Every structure is written in structure tokens, then in C-alpha cells.
């Protein structure tokens, strides 16, 4: 088992979303290759991975829109398509642009409300909640992408569902909007809802998510709490600050450590405990100013995890010019 996974066995009756062993093939491409993870109540789960890793496909499968060749996706223990009033279980935002441009934002929510027998009052409530009350009667075709995202979130909240699932909700939002969105997602979790938020940028979710599902090439390559992930990525590493980088690296490598220059005058060392490093450097007369336990950022974790899994990696400039 990978050090990045602390997944518990899926409970069929569990509240939240339980995705188990999803496999789906589109012609020659394997879109989902054993995707498994869980989304628990009261927690914001970040769903991150490079473009094309299978995030949107997984969300469509959870919503019963796409069929899979293998595996199950359960909402509160039931497949989505067997839910009697699905909007009361899951609120979702897949594509904010999926609107009829000639219909007002309010009317878009109104037909969705009718689907669940919700009163028009509820429509006005969610519109106020997302801050769209003033433009609700304007045609949705004239909305900015940020406004459409807010409308999509309003739609997701119509049924006051215990589970909220949002695909790339930060797309097209201005900085104010992003700050609002983060607070909003946290408040949803604080109300005890299970929140799944996808993004292809770690920076968008790192201050919001408590739990991360990192995906690459159609499967979850990590499914763990944010603190756990950072700890696992930091484990056994020592950050060293020195003006004689080359000398220090030679000495430490000779002693069996793996060494990596990580910046101007900083070196990350693994394979040797900190006290042994201090001794070695002192004996060899290498000057250093700081030795500390390395603390990884989420960005580091993400890059390390997805390094192998990026499907559409840009060619390096050196390769292009040749």
C-alpha cells in the first residue's frame, strides 16, 4: 500500500459518496482504470489531477449520466439512478455554460425546482445565497462565467442536499469570487455536508480542502487527509542551507544520502538523520547555516504524485528547439 493512502474499506451503507473500482473505456483510451475513493460528510474533499485524468468522467458516472464497464458509484449507499428525488441527495454543478441563453437565471432554477416539487420560494432563497438576486431575471446568455458558476452552485443547493459535488467551480471566477467560493465551501462542510470539489490546480483547493483525492490516468493515486499527505511527503527529509552547496552534496552523497539542490543555497537530503548530517558536515569543514526537518507544500505533493500520470505534458523547450 502506498504511503499516501489511508483509505478505509468502503462501507455500502456509508453516507456520502463511495466510488469503487470504476473502469470505463472510450474506444482505445482507458478513461477510468479502477477509480476508487470516498467522500465523507462534514469534510471538503478536493478532487485534483491533471486535465484528462478522469475527474469529469467520474463525476458524470456518480450522477448516473455515463455508464461504466465495471465498478459502482453509490450515493448514501444507492446508485444515483435509483434515487427517488436525487436533488434532495446530491446537488451538482458539472458545466456552468450548460444553460439555455434565452432563459433567465431564475427560470432556469425554477424548472429544476419543479423537477423535485420544490416551491418557487426556494429558488429565491438560493439566488440570494449565491448573491445573484439582483440579476436573477436577466437572460442567462448575458451572464459572465463567474455569474454562471454562482448560478450553477445555486442549482446544486436547490434541494438542500447533504452532498454537494462541483466540477471546476473556480473556473472564470475573479479573486473576490474565489475568496467567496472558499468560504462558501467551508461553510457547506461546516453544516455537515459532504462536499466534493474538482480542480486541475492544487492552489485552488489547498486552502479549502480537508481531504484530497489525487487522480492520474483514470485512478486515484492518493486518497488521504491533507495533513497526512504533507507529513508523508515530508517524512525523513532534511532541508539544509549552505553557501558551499557542491561540496556539501559530495560529502553527503558519499555517506549514502540522496541529495537534491532545491533552490539557491538550499539542499534537500533524505536517507540520513539530521544529527548525522550535522556531524558529517562539521567533520568535513563544510559551512552551513541551517538544518531543519523539510516541510513539503501541497504543490510538491501534487507534482510528485502526478509526475508520472500527466497525460499531456508539454515538451521541454530544449526538445522543441532541436
Amino acid at each position, binding site marked *: 500500500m502506498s504511503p499516501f493512502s489511508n483509505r478505509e474499506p468502503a462501507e455500502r451503507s456509508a453516507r456520502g459518496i463511495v466510488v469503487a473500482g470504476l473502469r470505463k473505456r472510450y474506444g482505445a483510451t482507458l478513461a477510468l482504470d479502477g477509480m476508487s475513493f470516498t467522500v465523507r460528510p462534514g469534510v471538503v474533499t478536493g478532487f485534483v489531477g491533471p486535465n484528462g485524468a478522469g475527474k469529469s468522467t467520474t463525476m458524470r458516472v456518480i*450522477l448516473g*449520466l455515463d455508464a461504466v464497464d465495471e465498478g459502482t458509484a453509490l450515493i448514501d449507499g444507492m446508485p*444515483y439512478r*435509483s434515487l427517488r428525488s436525487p436533488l434532495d441527495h446530491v446537488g451538482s454543478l458539472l458545466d456552468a455554460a450548460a444553460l439555455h441563453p434565452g432563459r433567465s437565471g431564475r427560470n432556469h432554477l425554477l424548472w429544476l425546482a419543479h423537477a423535485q416539487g420544490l416551491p418557487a420560494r426556494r429558488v429565491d432563497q438560493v439566488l440570494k445565497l449565491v448573491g445573484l438576486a439582483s440579476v436573477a431575471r436577466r437572460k442567462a446568455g448575458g451572464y459572465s462565467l463567474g455569474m454562471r458558476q454562482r448560478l450553477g452552485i445555486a442549482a446544486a443547493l436547490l434541494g438542500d442536499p447533504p452532498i454537494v459535488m462541483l466540477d471546476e467551480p473556480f473556473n472564470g471566477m475573479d479573486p473576490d469570487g474565489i475568496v467567496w467560493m472558499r468560504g462558501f465551501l467551508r461553510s457547506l462542510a461546516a453544516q455537515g455536508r459532504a462536499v466534493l470539489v474538482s480542480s486541475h490546480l492544487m492552489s485552488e483547493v489547498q486552502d479549502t480542502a480537508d481531504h484530497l483525492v489525487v487522480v492520474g490516468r483514470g485512478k486515484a493515486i492518493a486518497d488521504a487527509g491533507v495533513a497526512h499527505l504533507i507529513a508523508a511527503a515530508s517524512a525523513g527529509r532534511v532541508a539544509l542551507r549552505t553557501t558551499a552547496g557542491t561540496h556539501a552534496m559530495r560529502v553527503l552523497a558519499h555517506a549514502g544520502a540522496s541529495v537534491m539542490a532545491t533552490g539557491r543555497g538550499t539542499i534537500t537530503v533524505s536517507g540520513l538523520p539530521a544529527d548525522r548530517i550535522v556531524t558529517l558536515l562539521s567533520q568535513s569543514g563544510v559551512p552551513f547555516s541551517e538544518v531543519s526537518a523539510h516541510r513539503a507544500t501541497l504543490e510538491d505533493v501534487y507534482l510528485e504524485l502526478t509526475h508520472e500520470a500527466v497525460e499531456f505534458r508539454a515538451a521541454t523547450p530544449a526538445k522543441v528547439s532541436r
Partner: protein
Amino acid sequence: MRAAVHVEWTKIRTVASPLWLLLGTIAATVTLSAGATSVVICTSAGCDGHMTKLSLVGVQLGQAPLAILAVLVISGEYSSGMIRTTLAAMPHRATALAAKAVTLTGLAAAAGTVAVLGSLLAAWLILPGHGFTAPSLADGATLRAVVGSILYLVLIALLSLGVATIVRDSATSIGVVLGLLYLFPILAQTIGDPHWQRLLQQIGPMNAGLTIQATTDLSSLPISPWAGLGVTAGWAAAALLGGGLLLHSRDA
């Protein structure tokens, strides 16, 4: 199901185009019918019997805007991606499609009734001035033609919905629908062999269905009026069934 119909009805009444297309259906039907009845000539006796059919000829044009409306009801959602929102809200896909069909049936019946009665009214105003007897609703065959024409329009709307559910793209769907409607009569017109001609007139959704408008010479028709309308219903049912199965099995 009631909630689903309510959804579809809300969707249709909250955008402007369906209303215009329904008005277009009425305008096109009445205009062509009135135009045809005002230019008609008759060189020999016995034309009066064909006046019902002629008074309702506008249905051949009026079905086009109605078909657009029916196509857009589903393909419009595919082009914007809203179909996913719809199906996430109503995961039972057969219900979602049935709700669209029910809503369309109501709209087509309402617009069809106005269009057909409008055409009849035009005939009442125009035909006597040209020395013809205008069709009367007291006549059983005429009543059948009138009711049948409304049903025909409903069936064309359902056929279009089914085709659009299969094809998904609106421009292609309407091309397929109008091809099905208009190509059979043209082919029957140009094919010389009487056997094939009859067969084409029996199986075409438009020419078979519009035999419901015939009031005279019923024995010489390629297919009897109600059976003809049955053929159109068969096309509509097949298209809806095909569309429903694909909607059920396909990824949205």
C-alpha cells in the same frame, strides 16, 4: 411523471422561441390553405368532394415549424449541455423523454387545433365566392379529416422528438425529419411503376398520414384514412422507442 411534465412545461414557457414556432405553425398552415383555396379552379364537375383536402393543404407547410420546435426540445439541451442537468435532476430517463412527449403533444394539439380550424374558417370565407361548396363539420368525413389533421400534427411533433433524441444535433435532426416527410411523396411522384408508387404512398409518414384528409374516392386511396394515420403513428412510435432506448443506454 406530473413533476416531470411540469418541468418540461416550465422549460418551454420560459423561453421565447417555442411560442414563435407555434404561432409560425398556425400562420404557415392557414396561409398556405387560404392561398390554395383562393386559386383553385375546377374544369369538370365533382371537385367539391376534394375541397376538404384542399382546405387543409397548409398542414404540409405548418408541420415544418412544429417539427423545429419538437427537435429543439431535446437537441437544444444537447447543444448547450443542459441535458446533463436535466438527467441529473430526473435520472429516470424514460420519464424525462415521456414528459417531453406529453408536453409536446399538448402544445401540438393546441396549435394544431387553431391551425386546422383557421384553415377551415378561411375555406368558409373563400370557397363560396368561387362557386364551391365549403366543407362542413356536420359531414362525418370532413370531421374525421379535421380531427385527423390535428392528430397528424401531434404525431409529426412526436416523430421529430424521437428523431432528435436519436440524432441529437438540431440541424441534422430537422434535415432527417423533413427528408422523411417530403422525400416519399416526391419519389412516389417520379416513380413510374404503379406498384412501387402505391407502396411509397403507403409507407411515407406524410403521404400515408395525410390520407386522413381525403373525403371522396376512399376506395381508390393507396391506404385507408385511419390506417394511413396509423402508419404515421408507427413512425412516431418507432422514432420515440429508438430514441428512448438510445437515451437510456447512451452516456449523456
